[in-house]
């Protein structure tokens, strides 16, 4: 993914800072070698959390998270309900800004730039970091317009048909919808809707794709389609996925982060290690079903 095709010329958000968001100082990511857990080196870190704490009013949702998410891999976040995994995901693209009660402390670096710095425009940030939600939420517009929405938003309107087709192909949906692009996205099946949402998220070519339990509302067949797709997506995008399904995390992810109650990141390592030989007894108890 080159810098050139990340630059936008959208007339609606005339902020010139947006492009500086990614022009990072390569040195910054590697300042504190000890803080990154999970054997991710500073060189291939895309997202790094440093002492991230989040509160909803007086309830602490995340407790001092340190974490490095590697480039072009699938990082899974698992843990029991209310452990803060979704909260962490929503901190990365600042979707928590939309929640009045949320308060965040610490640093969350995207390519070395703290996304909570005062000069960061969350709108520009979210154009670099796509998101797929728990329940498929296609717009009540045509399939084509769903995929084109983000492209139009970012002024990437040249070769629109091609871009829409490419995104639908990447989301493994093209063959099923190529003859009915002007039908409503809401008429598709649940699994197709979710793949449409994935196509919509990747059409503007973001760097990172955040997925918040993307298969939890789908049937088993659709789930396995989406899982296959996630593995393919990791060739081009950094994928961060929240799931409550441990088998799913084991199947599709390269790295796994285990959050436990209280918003604590207990262990973060290669997925294989987490599932076969975790260091923490609490993680082992959770994985083997003794807790959570």
């Amino acid at each position, binding site marked *: 993914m080159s810098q050139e095709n990340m630059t936008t010329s959208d007339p*609606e*958000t005339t902020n010139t800072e947006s492009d500086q968001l990614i022009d990072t100082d390569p040195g910054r990511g590697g300042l504190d070698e000890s803080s990154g857990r999970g054997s991710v080196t500073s060189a291939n870190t895309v997202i790094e959390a440093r002492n991230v704490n989040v509160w909803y009013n007086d309830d602490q949702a995340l407790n001092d998270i340190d974490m490095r998410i590697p480039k072009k891999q699938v990082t899974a976040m698992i843990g029991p309900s209310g452990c803060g995994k979704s909260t962490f995901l929503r901190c990365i*693209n600042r*979707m928590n800004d*939309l929640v009045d009660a949320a308060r965040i402390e610490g640093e969350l670096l995207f390519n070395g730039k703290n996304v909570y710095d005062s000069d960061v425009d969350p*709108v*520009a*940030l*979210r*154009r670099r970091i*796509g*998101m797929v*939600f728990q*329940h498929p*939420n*296609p*717009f*009540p*517009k045509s399939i084509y317009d769903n995929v084109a*929405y*983000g492209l139009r*938003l*970012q002024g990437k309107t040249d070769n629109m048909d091609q871009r829409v087709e490419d995104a639908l192909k990447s989301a493994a949906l093209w063959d099923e919808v190529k003859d009915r692009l002007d039908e*409503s996205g*809401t008429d598709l099946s649940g699994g197709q809707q979710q793949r449409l*949402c994935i196509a*919509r*998220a990747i059409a*503007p070519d973001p760097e990172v794709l955040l997925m918040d339990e993307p298969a939890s509302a789908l049937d088993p067949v659709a789930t396995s389609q989406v899982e296959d797709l996630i593995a393919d997506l990791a060739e081009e995008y950094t994928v961060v996925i929240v799931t409550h399904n441990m088998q799913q995390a084991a199947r599709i992810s390269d790295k796994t982060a285990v959050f436990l109650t209280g918003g604590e990141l207990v262990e973060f390592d290669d997925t294989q290690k987490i599932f076969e030989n975790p260091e923490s007894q609490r993680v082992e108890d959770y994985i083997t079903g003794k807790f959570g």
Partner: protein
Amino acid sequence: MTEQSQPPDLTGNRGMQQTRETLYHVVFFACAALSVVTTVGIIVALLGDALSFFGSYSIVEFLTGTQWSVLSNSFGVLPLVYGTLIVTFGSALIAMPLGLLTAIYLSEYASKQMRSVLKPMLEILAGVPTVVYGYFAIVYITPFLEATLFPSISTFNALSASIVVGIMIIPMVASISEDAMSAVPDSLRQAGYGLGATKFNVSTRIVVPAAISGIASSFILALSRAIGETMAVTLAMGSKPGLPSSLHPGELFLRPYSSMTAQMVNTINGELSGGSAAYDAVFAVGLVLFVITLVMNIVSDRIASRYREEY
């Protein structure tokens, strides 16, 4: 595992219950039937008197005549239709954009506290008696327009009527549109924000299109209200039937006209004896008004179902 030698007694209060349910059924049906019967009764009465009018007056002359004068027994409905339409059009021009923008503000931009204060206030505006709006037009709006923009404006004029009726129907547009926009699921807004949309973009490209059938309904309902509005229009625009002599805006808007409703009130006031031509003509006008409103409601239903975006 208890032994059950006898089946349980499940009779309960069956007889009593059934009698009560039957009674409820009858009461609810009677209420529903009452409104239907009343409506049918009104239509029949309207049709009866209108038909007796058309027995003595040519229906073609009624529909195409350009003069309405009780004294000279000429009952051309066009001047009245013009009076009604100009006020409807003018008020729509004011109420649709302002109402929609108000709705967007309330639904998408206002904080919870702000909305909880503003929305009831807006609905109070809808509860102000229309005669008050009429006085407001005569006492404040027309003199203001005369002193500022239009020195040649008549005391009674279509512009002031359009403005007050427009203000009057803003709450209707805003309130119904806001309901429609608030009903748009938050997941769609999240999807927009997740793609890097601004609040303005989410509001105008996602929420408004998704709520368009409700917004269209609010427009049509408000227009129906404007068409039927009587007191404010009569006070502000007068009841002098006429057609504009040119398409000059001053001629179209700054003169007195008479709406259908204003003329009905006026005629009935002066013509208390039934059976005269003028008395019957009023019912014919009422029938035209009824047909226009009915068509509007049908169109509104069609629009609502046609553009319903399912989410």
